[in-house]
């Protein structure tokens, strides 16, 4: 869990310990699952043997599990503000085709292609939302929307290393090397949560949050990988009221 998460928990605890506030508060911790696959492709160029080579990579990251914690403060009118931190993890794979310039001849690229799996992607996000909710004796329904700040850390492919020998017409690519790269971007989110109150202070809830941003990861050579972060994550967990 991120440092953001830890500080949010602290904030929740402080709010819960302050019953004298005019409105009412709500805090939650949920396990989530984001079923959305994220796929992306990149084209990179590089200079080798006085000529330009290219690397085209397609990435596919599966949906994966994550979690979310948050705290909300709501006025009597039903309007409120909330702050949440979420994270999600995904496993992925990449396939590439590369054209390596020939050392002895112009315009005679050596082609190579391959794939690799076991790539990982972790996205963390802070969501700051406007909330409107209706709270009944047992049930509560909350809608929210706002801005999200995403940070994505993902494995991307480095330019494949290869060996070659005279007459250099083909290359033998060594096992692909991945690099961990991260990037941040501000995006948006909106969602809905439904709580069932078990007692004055505790409850259970389900939620769905749609969020999105396109994050750029800087590759080696001259290239960037643009990844769609977020998706529609569903979750369920504990609720705390104060």
């Amino acid at each position: 869990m991120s440092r953001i998460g830890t500080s949010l928990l602290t904030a929740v605890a402080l709010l819960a310990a302050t019953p004298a506030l005019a409105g009412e508060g709500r805090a939650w911790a949920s396990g989530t699952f984001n079923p959305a696959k994220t796929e992306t492709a990149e084209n990179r160029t590089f200079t080798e043997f006085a000529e330009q080579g290219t690397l085209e990579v397609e990435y596919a990251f599966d949906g994966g599990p994550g979690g979310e914690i948050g705290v909300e403060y709501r006025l009597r009118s039903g309007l409120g503000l909330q702050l949440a931190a979420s994270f999600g993890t995904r496993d992925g794979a990449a396939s590439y085709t590369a054209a390596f310039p020939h050392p002895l001849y112009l315009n005679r690229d050596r082609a190579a292609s391959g794939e690799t799996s076991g790539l990982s992607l972790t996205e963390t996000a802070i969501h700051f939302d406007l909330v409107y909710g209706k709270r009944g004796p047992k049930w509560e329904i909350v809608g929210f929307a706002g801005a999200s700040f995403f940070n994505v850390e993902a494995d991307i492919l480095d330019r494949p290393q290869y060996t070659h020998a005279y007459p250099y017409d083909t290359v033998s690519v060594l096992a692909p090397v991945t690099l961990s790269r991260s990037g941040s971007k501000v995006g948006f989110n909106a969602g809905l949560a439904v709580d069932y109150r078990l007692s004055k202070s505790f409850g259970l809830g389900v939620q769905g949050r749609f969020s999105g941003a396109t994050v750029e990861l800087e590759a080696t050579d001259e290239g960037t990988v643009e990844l769609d972060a977020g998706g529609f994550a569903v979750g369920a967990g504990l609720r705390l009221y104060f």
Partner: protein
Amino acid sequence: MKWYGTVLALALAAGGAQAADPTGTRRVAAGDGAALSDWDFRAGRLEAAGDLRLRLVREDELLPGRVHERLAQFYRGIPVWGGELVRQRSATATLSVFGTFYEGIELDVTPTLTAADAARSVAARGLTLPLDKQPELVVLPREAGYALAWRLRANTDPDAGFDARMIFLDARDGAVLLEYSDLKHQSAVGTGTGVLADSKKMSVLSGGGGFLTDDQLRPPRLRTFDMKGNLTRTLQFLNGQVALGQSDLAVDPDNVWSDGAVVDAHAYAGYTYDYLYKRFGRRGLDDQNGRILSLVHPVNRADIFGYSDSVVSTFYLNAFYYGDGIMVYGEGLPSNLTAGGQRFNYWSGALDVVSHELGHGVTDFTSALIYYGESGALNESFSDILAAGTEFFHQEAGSGPLKADWLLAEDTVTPGGIRSMQNPAAFGDPDHYSIRFTGAEDNNGVHINSSISNHAFYLAIEGGRNRVSGLSVTGVGSANRDLIERVFFRAYTALLAPSSDFSAARAATLQSARDLYGANSNAERAVREAWNAVGVQ
């Protein structure tokens, strides 16, 4: 003397592995804590005994708090060449030990030869021992065992091509135990603009702040010397009076080459090597990756009026294979001059010219066809055959500059080139044996009568009707040119003898065609029809 070396590669993260190589060296890569603590302990003891001595300590630049200690191996106070352990430490523990430690050394460390003796023996070979690099006594591990040796790093004469030699002399009898070049060469690939303004790659050597025409990527020593118009030095080199060295190589500061004569001589020598290798599996002129040296700018165009006719015809109006892998490319004529109505550009600017000259090298190392009369005409023809083959291998078929065709030197001598394999009569050369040149000129017509074999080669591929005999040939077709190229290559290099004549060439190519493609194969038939058409029986 029994000995063995232990190569250690110990790391916490590595998995255990053990392998043996034929010299008896044990290589260990142990990842368990026991192996590491073993070698940590052992290194400490060896250090205390003076068998390992701290040579260098470096703080880790990437991981703060880590230190790397290099412990050089000594035997009775004498350094063991290559013996060293590298210990990685944190503030509290040893984290890894890598390296090589030689065990089982038993040597008398008193040299019979003195340091001065060693220095003298190197100087006697014409090598220069730098003043600050005196001989060092070392223990040299070899496959045959350990030896006490004087280690010297000495430089060769720049005239012979500068090199720094690492030499190990036996400290008992002065024999050379090991010697290698200690110059760290680096390959580089640049681009160049050829004589005809086309772009190509240059495989060169990087060093000394510039780039030099010494191909590091192809297997042979393939170098291009810029003679800078110095005919005296060119002749001295050909006469064996001076050696050409690194300072004679063509130089470019940024690896974007603009001297077309240099670019093409260097690149096209490589193209020809590649053609020989890819088409025939041959490794260079001698099939052993022997040297290929190209000399360009043997004269300056501007100096032409100061030279005799014979210098002009050799070093301006010609290119030649001197022997021993040495090619010399003529300078061509100043652009306002013509000879016989033709303009002459730098001779290396034509791929077929370069390949033709290198072809003479192949002949020299194989059939050694005597350069006179019919055998000489076959020698010339073989070079033309390789020239055409190289062109069609690397260039698009067509007419005009940088196209593959059946003309010779058409990219250098314009318009038209100097010979035609398709239509020899266009240049006054015989296209039938019955009209062969029988005079004494041209070594009894080596360049003139080559056209008879050239034309047979052409007809076997392209087909057609001979002008003199009227006989028609069905060629194998240009898409199958490689068949006929192999037939002729194999016949002219492997089957012919130094004084073979045209009739022998016919027999050898037919034999070659049958060997390669079977009796009555399309190739054999085409070759037979072709020789019939040009009147060679």
